[in-house]
C-alpha cells in the first residue's frame, strides 16, 4: 500500500495528492467542520463569561435617565423626568469625571534639583 502510494508520488505528485484528497474528502470536511464549531463555541463561552464578570464593568456608575430602559422609566417619579432633574444629573456626572481626572501632581512643574555649590576649594 505504502509502496504503491510512494510510486504514485514519484510518478505524478499532484495527481497522487489529488487522488488522496478525494478519497479522504469526507474526513477532511468533518475535521474542518469540527474545528469551526469548536472555535465558535470558545468564542461564545468567552462572550458570555465576559458579560457576566464584574471585572468587565469596573466603573459601574449610576445610570442616567437616558440609560434606563423604557420599561424601567415608567417606574420613575414625575420629578425625575423634568428638565431640571435631567440637567442636574448630567452636570453631576460631568463633575464626577472632572474630579476623577484632575492632575494634582504636575510632576514636570517641580523645581529641578540644581542646588550644587560650585567650588574649587577642596576635592
Amino acid at each position: 500500500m505504502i509502496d504503491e502510494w510512494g510510486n504514485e508520488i514519484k510518478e505524478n505528485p499532484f495527481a497522487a495528492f489529488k487522488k488522496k484528497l478525494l478519497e479522504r474528502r469526507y474526513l477532511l470536511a468533518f475535521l474542518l467542520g469540527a474545528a469551526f464549531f469548536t472555535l465558535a463555541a470558545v468564542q461564545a463561552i468567552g462572550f458570555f463569561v465576559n458579560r457576566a464578570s464584574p471585572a468587565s464593568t469596573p466603573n459601574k456608575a449610576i445610570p442616567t435617565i437616558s440609560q434606563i430602559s423604557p420599561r424601567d422609566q415608567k417606574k420613575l417619579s414625575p420629578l425625575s423626568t423634568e428638565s431640571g432633574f435631567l440637567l442636574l444629573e448630567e452636570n453631576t456626572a460631568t463633575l464626577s469625571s472632572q474630579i476623577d481626572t484632575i492632575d494634582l501632581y504636575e510632576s514636570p512643574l517641580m523645581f529641578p534639583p540644581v542646588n550644587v555649590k560650585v567650588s574649587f576649594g577642596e576635592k
Partner: protein
Amino acid sequence: MFKKTFIFFLLFYYIFFKHPLISRADYSSLKIEYSQKLAEYNEAYSDYQIARGSYLTYKTLAALTQALEKSKTYLTKRDELIIKHFELLKEKSNSKIADGEITFYRSHLSLITAIATLKDIETVAKKAEDQIPISNVRSKQILGQILISKVQEINNSYSNIINETSGLEAKIMELKKSGKNTDKLERWLVEVKNKKMLCETLLAQVNDRLNALKGNSASVEKDFNEMRIDISQANLYLKEGANYIKEILEEIKYD
C-alpha cells in the same frame, strides 16, 4: 522668480512661526524643551565634576582651562534650566513672580560670559546659589496656586450644582409631607453643603501656608508635600459631595 518666491516664503515662515517675539510656545512644546534642558544640565554637571576632579588632582594649566570651560558651561546650563522651569510655570499660571525669577537668571547668564578665573566662577556661582533656595520656594508657591486654582474651578462647578439642588429640597419636603421617612435624604443634602465648606476651608488654609512658605530645602519639600496632600483632600471632599448628590438623585428617581 522662483528664487524670490522661495525667499519670501522663507521670511514669512521665520517671522510668523520662528521669531520669538511673534510665535508663542505652548505648554507641551515648552515641556519638551524643558526635558532637553534637563538632559543638557545633567551632562554639563557630569562634565563639571570630572573637570573639577581633574584640576584638583593635577593642577596643570590644561586641567585649569578645562575646569574653567566646563564650569562656565555648567553655570550656563543651570541658569537656562531654571529659566525654562519658570517659563513652564508661567505658561500654566501667568504669574508675575515667575517673571521676576526669569529676569534674575537672564541677567545672571550675562555675568557668566565675563568669567576669567576660578575665583570669578565661585563668585558668580554664589550669586545664583544664594537665589536658588528662594527660587525653589517661589516655584512651589506658583505650583501650589496652580493646584489650588484647579480644585477651585471644580468647586465652582460644584457650587453651581448645589444651587440647582433647590428643586431637590422641595421634592424632599414634598415626600416628607406625604409621610415618607426622608431623614436619610435630608442628612445627605446637609452633607453636600458641608463638603463644599470643608473643601473651601482647607483650600484657604493651604493658601495661607503657601504664602508663608520659607526655610531650608528639606523643610520646604516636607511642607509642600503636606500641602499637596491637603489639596488632594479638598478634591476628595468634592468627590464625596458629588457622590451624595448622585445618591439623592437615585433615591428620588425611583420614588
